[in-house]
């Protein structure tokens, strides 16, 4: 980072040396060219100011998420599919923090024998029956990671609203809207990265992470849902 911020400064010094040398070579009075001189000098000053500002901005608050390689994104996409397939078909849910992100966890005391879960259509509801559990349920909102291009924006997503009333667990997923601006110096700056492109728009289709709810319940409780398949899983 220190090196990175030094290099533009060096180049800047070079530009200034050139401009100063150029002006000494033509230090004459010329009313016609005065305007042009000011234009060029003014522009150079603005360029420098802009660059300094942009570097200070970019390095502090404006970059979100971490960027990963294109290859990584593809691997993620496959891994996510495999993870869900395995959970649904074999009943084994692997909590892999590289793939899954725990958004929220809530526990509710529960004494009943039957729990009804209200969850929107097409979302996974995984139930893990724990023999050690007594008198409470733990509801965890998980999401598989979300990538736009090769940028991980999972952490920007909102958590689901979860509430337990009587024996009905109500889960509502909240929609996240992101307005993004992606900047790139331009293709020349990525041409020589050995084919590894880090620019957002040059990546593959976005990977939208899937939200799901993992329900930890005591062994004897029956879990039902009106229109959603309930999958019993063992957490690894």
């Amino acid at each position, binding site marked *: 980072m220190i090196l990175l911020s030094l290099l533009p400064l060096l180049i800047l010094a070079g*530009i200034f040396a050139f401009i100063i040398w150029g002006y000494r070579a033509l230090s004459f009075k010329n009313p016609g060219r005065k305007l042009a001189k000011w234009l*060029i000098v003014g*522009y150079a000053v603005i360029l420098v100011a*802009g660059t300094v500002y942009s570097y200070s901005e970019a390095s502090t608050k404006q970059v979100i998420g971490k960027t990963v390689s294109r290859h990584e994104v593809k691997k993620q996409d496959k891994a996510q599919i495999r993870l869900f397939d395995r959970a649904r078909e074999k009943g084994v849910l692997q909590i892999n923090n590289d793939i899954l992100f725990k958004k929220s966890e809530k526990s509710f005391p529960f004494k009943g024998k039957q729990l009804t879960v209200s969850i929107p259509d097409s979302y996974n509801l995984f139930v893990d029956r724990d023999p050690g559990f007594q008198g409470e349920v733990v509801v965890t909102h998980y999401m598989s990671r979300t990538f736009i291009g090769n940028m991980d924006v999972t952490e920007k997503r909102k958590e689901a609203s979860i509430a337990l009333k009587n024996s009905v667990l109500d889960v509502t997923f*909240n929609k996240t809207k992101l307005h993004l601006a992606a900047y790139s110096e331009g293709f*020349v700056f990525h041409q020589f*990265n050995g*084919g590894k492109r880090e620019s957002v728009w040059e990546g593959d289709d976005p990977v939208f992470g899937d939200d799901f709810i993992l329900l930890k319940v005591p062994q004897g409780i029956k879990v039902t849902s009106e229109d959603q398949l309930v999958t019993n899983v063992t957490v690894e």
Partner: protein
Amino acid sequence: MYLTEVSTWDMVKKLYRYKLNSYFGVFTSLVIIQILSILFSLNGTGSSGGSSDTFEYNMNIYSGTLILAFMMGWAFLVATLITTKAYRYDDSSFVSNRTASHFSNILFLFSASIIAGITVYFSYHLFLSVVSLFMKVRVVQADTLTPIQLAQGITASVLYIFLFTSLGYLTGMLVQVQKFFVFVLPALFIGALIIDGNLSDEPRLLISLGSFYGLETSFIVFVFKTLLTTGALYGVSILVSRRVEVRP
């Protein structure tokens, strides 16, 4: 009678110095073109978006590529301009011959390319500041470049721009030799694109030309490719110019 002996290189340097002073307008136009390209870039070079049930995003893509593209066009025009009589005759008012004149032009255009290539990077950052200052964009993703990537990128920008000066120089020289090239060259260019488009399902000419340089991932090979092409184009220009009188 005492005759002065001069070396070509010495005169090239003197002409080069003269050009730095007198072709001042080239740098003024650089500033104007860059400001224009920044304004055009504010539109974004692209946008994308997508949504799922719980997630929606839209993304404006801002890139320095447009600024570089503008600079390539500028380089082409500046080079053609320098081949016109008004500029060529300026040289013949002082001590020069065509070799010295060409080499000082190339040297001048190379300097201009260096300045343009470096300022492309800086004007991109200026543009970035303008976006983050004046446009309501919530989240920003920006490249992070290693110093080597930065140095390679700037060098590559300079070389691309320099390549376009050689293209412009040749075009200008051809027009100076035969005025009808003004019509012939664009016609040939567009004609080639049309034929290319008709012959194959996908037009390949420009794309393969562009990818020859643009898809080269080895920096060293890229430097060789661009410098060799640039050198060859300048070489042809110098040969072509032998058909023009120094100052009729």
